[in-house]
Each structure stands twice: as C-alpha cells, then as structure tokens.
C-alpha cells in the first residue's frame, strides 16, 4: 500500500539497537505461531469513489462552519437581547439557556464540521511508523555514562566525601524552617485545649437555634426535637466566632416519656422531667445529628447513618460511631427556663487522639454493656 515509511532514523545509521535482546520471562515461546498477514488492502470511501458525494461532503463541512458562525453571532445577540433582570429568576434561566446553546452551537459547528472534513475528505491511507526500543542508542548511553563520570571527576563529588556529605546534610536541613513556618497557620492556643470545651457554663439558659428564644420546660412537648444553642451565642456576631462556637455547643433537646427513659446511676439528675439534652455533633466524624424519629426516640446522623437511642443516654444502636452523644446536664432556673448545669463532661464531636485527657472527673461513663448493646 502507499504506507509511507516513517522509520527515518533519528540517530546516524550504525547506531542500531538491534543487539539488545530482552528476557521474555515467563512468556511462552511459540515456535509454531501464525504470522501477521500484513495490512489489508485499503478500502476506499464513498467520497473517494463518487465525486458528487465528495462535493456533498464538502458542502456539509461548509454548512457546519457557517452554523458555527451563526452560533457566535447568536451568542452576542443573546447576551444583549436576553439580559438578566435583577431578582427575576426566569430571566437568569433564559440568559443561561440562550447564551449557552448559542455558544454550544458555535463550538459544535467547528468540531463536527472539522471532524466530517477529516473523516470524509482527508486521506484515509494508514501510515506505518517503525518503533524503536525506548532506551537511548548505545553511543548515547555510553556518552551519558561518560558525562556523569566527567562530572564526578571534574567536581570531585565522590573523591571529596566531606564536601559531599556536608552538602547532603545541609540540603536535608534546609526545609526544616519551612515546616516551622506553618505553625502560625493556627492561633497560639493549644489545639487540644481549643476543642476540649464548649461555651456552656452553669446556669446558662438554653435558647432556640437560631432565633435565640428562651425555652421553658413546659414548652418542650413530647415527640418534638428542639435545636438549641446557648443563650449568649445568639448575641455573638458572625465575624466574632459565631459558627465556631456553634459547632461545639449545638444541642438537641428532646422530651422522652418517663416510662421510656432509662437513666444510669449518677446521671439521674442530668435530665429535667424527662427532658434530655445531647450534643448535636456526631461522635463519628462530626456531622450534625439532626434527624429525630419520635416513635423510637432514635437520632439519626444523615451523613453516615450512625443511630443513637435518646431514651438510653444516646447510646449507639447502629452505624460507624462508637461513643454515645455527650449529654448536657440540664435543669430549670427560678423563672422556669431550661438552663445548663455545667459544660459537657467530655469533649464533643469526633474522637481525637488526646480526647481522654479532657474527660471531666465528674463524667459518668456508660458501662461497656450499655454502649455495646447494638440493635
């Protein structure tokens, strides 16, 4: 066939690499194998055989390019003629649609037209190019070795070992200042201290998230779940750490019928009249555990399906979380508002390496049996 030979040697002849034979390893040698029958005869296309079909393909290519031009013009027209009226979502949608489709036409016109040209009108004869081993030619490999040897000799890199070794040492140390520089990515405060406690303090009132309205015990009806923040949080500005504090202090408040509420010894005083408060931050990786199912008193984390039983100190009944949600001890103040007795007795949220160092001595852990009992 008219396959053109592309094997023009890049290296001067005489540098052939055919001497290199690589081990075939575990490959089976086939003495009796078939031989490649070689390129099949070229099959002409319709456009090669019929001039009128060739002319038609040419017209089609031109047609696509003209459509592309039309698309470009339409895009500019759409930009001006379909403006966005502020606040009008329909106009946003229309602008997006007409501008987008026009640009798509402009691009696809070029793409389809040129593809048609390539497939129907450009030469379809296959070209054969020889491969060579990827490795460099023997002379260039020898020259490379020689260059490194020269470099070594001329610099004395191997000979002057003290120079070399101190250089390696210096280069090994030089990134260290860069590592230290990253310390101030975060404030000076200790990382573990920063997440060990929340802003809940004794007597702090519970407030609705996000309105900040206070909550009386009587307001908490059975079956409803209240999303709660500390009262002072509502006063903190968004630029003064509002979200940071909320990510620690967010609480879910639920009233469980007294006959359904199991309380372990030591935690009886942590609830008020069947009302219990738990950290809303999952002990798995810290998503908000926001889905409450009132029939079963289960709290479900929508991220990874960890499920906690509110009537049993929020112990884990399913999912990848290990620990129960930390309980916020609550009571009511003189005016009947729900208040925290104190901060959580253990760090909230996802487990971290140093977590146990910050479990309060007054923390009442659930026994292994109570936490391990899975549905």
């Amino acid at each position: 066939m008219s396959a053109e030979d592309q094997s023009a040697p890049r290296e001067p002849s005489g540098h052939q690499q055919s001497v290199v034979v690589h081990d075939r390893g575990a490959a089976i040698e086939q003495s009796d194998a078939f031989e490649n029958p070689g390129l099949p005869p070229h099959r002409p296309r319709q456009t090669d055989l019929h001039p009128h079909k060739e002319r038609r393909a040419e017209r089609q290519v031109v047609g696509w390019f003209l459509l592309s031009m039309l698309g470009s013009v339409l895009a500019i027209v759409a930009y001006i003629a379909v403006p966005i009226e502020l606040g009008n979502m329909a106009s946003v949608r229309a602008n997006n649609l007409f501008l987008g489709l026009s640009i798509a036409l402009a691009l696809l016109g070029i793409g389809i037209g040129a593809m048609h040209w390539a497939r129907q009108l450009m030469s379809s004869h296959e070209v054969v190019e020889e491969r060579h081993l990827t490795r460099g030619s023997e002379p260039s490999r020898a020259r490379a070795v020689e260059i490194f040897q020269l470099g070594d000799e001329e610099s004395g890199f191997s000979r002057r070992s003290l120079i070399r070794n101190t250089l390696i040492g210096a280069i090994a140390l030089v990134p260290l200042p860069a590592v230290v520089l990253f310390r101030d990515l975060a404030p000076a405060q200790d990382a573990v201290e920063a997440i060990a406690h929340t802003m809940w303090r004794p007597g702090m009132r519970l407030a609705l998230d996000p309105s900040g309205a206070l909550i009386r015990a009587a307001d908490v009806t059975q079956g409803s779940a209240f999303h709660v923040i500390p009262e002072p949080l509502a006063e903190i500005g968004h630029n003064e750490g509002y979200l940071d504090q909320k990510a620690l202090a967010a609480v879910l408040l639920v009233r469980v019928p007294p006959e359904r509420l199991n309380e372990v010894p030591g935690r009886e005083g942590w609830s008020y009249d069947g009302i219990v408060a738990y950290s809303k931050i999952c002990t798995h990786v810290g998503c908000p555990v926001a889905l409450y199912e009132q029939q079963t008193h289960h709290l479900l984390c929508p991220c990874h399906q960890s499920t906690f039983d509110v009537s049993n100190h929020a112990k884990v009944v399913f999912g990848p979380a290990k620990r129960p949600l930390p309980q916020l001890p609550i009571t009511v103040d003189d005016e009947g508002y729900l208040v925290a007795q104190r901060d959580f007795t253990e760090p909230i949220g996802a487990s971290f390496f140093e977590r146990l160092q910050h479990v309060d001595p007054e923390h009442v852990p659930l026994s292994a049996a109570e936490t391990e009992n899975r549905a």
Partner: protein
Amino acid sequence: MTTTAPRSSFTAQASNYLDERTSISTMVSALGRKVFPDHWSFMLGEIILYSFVAILLTGTFLTFFFEPSMTAIEYDGSYVPLKGVEMSAAYASTLDLSFDIRGGLLMRQVHHWSALLFVAAIGLHMLRVFFTGAFRKPREINWVVGFILFILALAEGFTGYSLPDDLLSGNGLAIINGMVKGIPVVGTWISYLLFGGIFPGDDIVPRLFVLHIMLLPALVIAFIGVHLVLMVVNKHTQFAAPGKTNDNVVGAPIMPLFAAKAGSFFFIVFGFLVAIGSTFTILPVWDFGPYDPSPVSAGTQPDWYIGFADGALRLAPGWESEIFGLTLSWNILLPIAVLGGFIVLVMFYPFIEGWITKDQREHHIAERPRNNPTRTAIGAAGIWFYAVLWAAASSDLIATHFHLNVFQVTWALQAALILGTVIVYWITKRTAIALQKKDREILLHGYESGNIRRLPGGEYVEVHEQLDDYQSWKLKAYESYAPVMVRPNANGRITPATHLRSAMSRWFFEDRIEPITRSEIEASKHHH
C-alpha cells in the same frame, strides 16, 4: 550561510523567519508525521485533556467574580429567598456571579460539568489502560504519572466543591475535619492548622482557593506535560490487527489527519459541555443556604467521585479503642487504610505484574482483556469493590427510594463488598477463559453462518464458515505465560521471594488458554 528560495510566499517567509530564530523545522520534521493509532477507546484520554482545557477557561472566568473570603456579610443580592441572611462573602459572591452576571451561571455550570467529565474520563481511561495491559514495559512510569493525575483530579474536585461555602460543602469539610482528627498523634493538630483554629474558622475557604486555582492546577499541568511527553516517547499502543505489530505503529499522521480529528474533537467535547451547562442544573447552591454547623438535610450526597471514600466511612464498623489514655478511632483509620491500600495496589500494579512475569521486553500491543483472564478478573473485582463503596455513599437514598431498612441496606452492602468482590473475580476469570475457548472454537471449526442445510438423510446441520486470514488474526495474536517453577538461585537457596513469585505466577497463569498454532489448525482440518 543560509539559502532561501527566491520570491517566496508570505507563509514561506514567515516560516523561515520563525525557523531561523527557533529551529522549529526540527520539531516539525520529527513530529509532524508521527503516527497515532485509531480506536474509540484511545479517545478517552483526549476527553480528559479537552475537559481540562474547558475547566481552565471557565475557571479563570469564575475567579474574576468569586471572592474567596469567609468574612460574614448580610446578603443583599438579587436572590430573594436569602435576603438578609448572614453568610460568608464566598457564598454571597457565588450567588452574585450566578444571578447577576450574564453568563456567570453558565460558566459555573460548565465548570462543574467539565470537572465531573474530567474525573469520569480519567476513570475510564485508567480502566482502558489497565484492561489492555497498556501499562506494561515501557509504560509503567507513565501509569504512575497518570495515577498521580487521578489523585490530583480528586483533590481539585474536592477543593472546588468546598469553595462556595454552602451547607453541603461545609458539611463535607466537617467530615474531613472529623477524619483528620481521627489520625493518631498528629490529627488534632493537622485539623487545627488546616482550619486556622477550631472548625470551621474563617481561613479554610481562602486556603483551599489558593490550592484550587494555583498549586493543584500547576501540578496537574506539569504532570499532564510529563504524561504526554512520555506518550510521545513511548508511542501509543495499538490493538493487534493485520499489519499492526509490536514493532510498528499504524494509524493517522499528526499532519493533517490526527491533528484535524483531535482538534475537532476538542470543539465537540467543549461544545457538548456548554450544551449540558446551558440545559442541566448542577449543584444549585442557593437551595442549600450558607454553611451553618447545626442544620443538615437528609440525603446529603458528595460529588460522585468522592462517594467511594464516604461509602467506606459508612460501611466501617464502629470500633474505637482506648489504650494508655489515648484514643484510636478504627472507625476512621480502617476505611482510610482500606482506601490507601486500594490506591497503592492500583498505583503499583504494573510493577507487581512485571515482577511475576519478569518479562523484560517492550509491549506495544494492547491486549484483549479476555487474553489475560487473571488481570481482567482482578480489574473487574476492583471495579466491583469501588462500585460498592460508591453505592454505599447513597445507602440512605437507596433505602428511601426502595422502601428498605437503612440498617439492612448497610449490612447487605458490607456483605457485597467482601463476598461480591470474590464472586466477581471468579465469574470474570471464568468468562474470560470461556471467551478464549470460543475464539479457539471459531478458529478450529469456523463460525456459525446461520445457514441451515438439510442433508439427504433428513438431518439438519448448520454450515460453519472459516474466517479469512485478516479476520482471524485478531483471535490468534496474543501471548501467553506459564507459571514459573521454584528454582534455587545462584547460591543454591530458594528464597521466600522465589516461593511467592512462583505461587503468584501459578495464581495468574495456571488456568490459561494458549494461542492457537498452525499444527493445531492443520490437525483439525485433517480431522474433518
């Protein structure tokens, strides 16, 4: 001394001007007629490149309007439902560029769709290379370069997804924060430094922005450069076909055919992405509201390519241990280890297979997957493993859509992850071997022509017809490997590595169908 043709055209003069200053004719003569083989699956890599160009173009437009700041402001833009809401400048500027800027929403959507296509095409391209053995010598290093690009693409995707600072992206970051904290010894501090204090802080968006638009794209461009240079040096693989051997490349020359096809394909990919961006909504961040650590809606989903990591978290057992007053979160470490192990295995697979075969020759023929049954089965098992983790990221949606119990869905997926991987491996291996047997059958006895004849005795037979030499070459042209025996080395010792290699080569090559030989065909002819 230079010689130029007298009275040359403008093009000739310009070319001469350029060549005398750049020596560009050397490059044109070396590469201008370089040959690229043609196969639809070779276009997958091109889609990656072209969608990346679309990402760069649309992303640059977005940076002109996006404000990477977590400073809180009261929204006073044109999207009425969020008027008066406290939100970060990042979220507000995302709303503004979507609703106030003509073409802004289009560019955002094309950017996101391009990113999704980018990652999807990388996945398919990797599968093509894996299943055809195109990672074998001399392309092992380019496989690793490509794999690093895959990881970079995931990092680009995740950092980009996090920038608008909406409820979903913030939740994604909350999960990252929790995972980082689960790392022993340094986790708490890494999280603290990453977020510039406690989560969410007000530093993460500008930091991710710098990674997303500067560091990561620079790395992606650099690695794409290396990837393409190595592809040119190694030349492209081709499927075995008449005239196509291990020692040549048959296909279209760059000038003009390949350049025309590749160039037009860029416009088709880009045009397709713009068409999708103008007709299909992607990630309507205005529906979710600004980030707040308290609310979250049911059915939250990460972008699909992060799904496998989220799914791994969902399927992990709830284990933690407390040793010497320190907490080890196995429910986080185990999925990280499984994903890390999976990634390392994929990344180093070419070296593992190369060690088993010890085949030092260069391989330029893309294998048909059936002709390497064990590798194909490993690949299929890997796909299954990945797919189950991916499906697990939607375990809650599977439960709600099909009215199932989410606990049972999780248990079923856990079982599918482990048992299914083994079953898929086995089925694929047997299927590949069966297909090889079918190829052999066709070579020996011809293919079923569909032509039924009635013999004089009343018997019906189907006429089998033989393939011609061109048609049958595809079925004959492959190589097979035999298991290696345990043999003592030069010191007369049998090392554990020798035993391991022998065992692995038995696992790979014990069940095999060797390519058909002339004598077998001859024998079958005489038999008839």
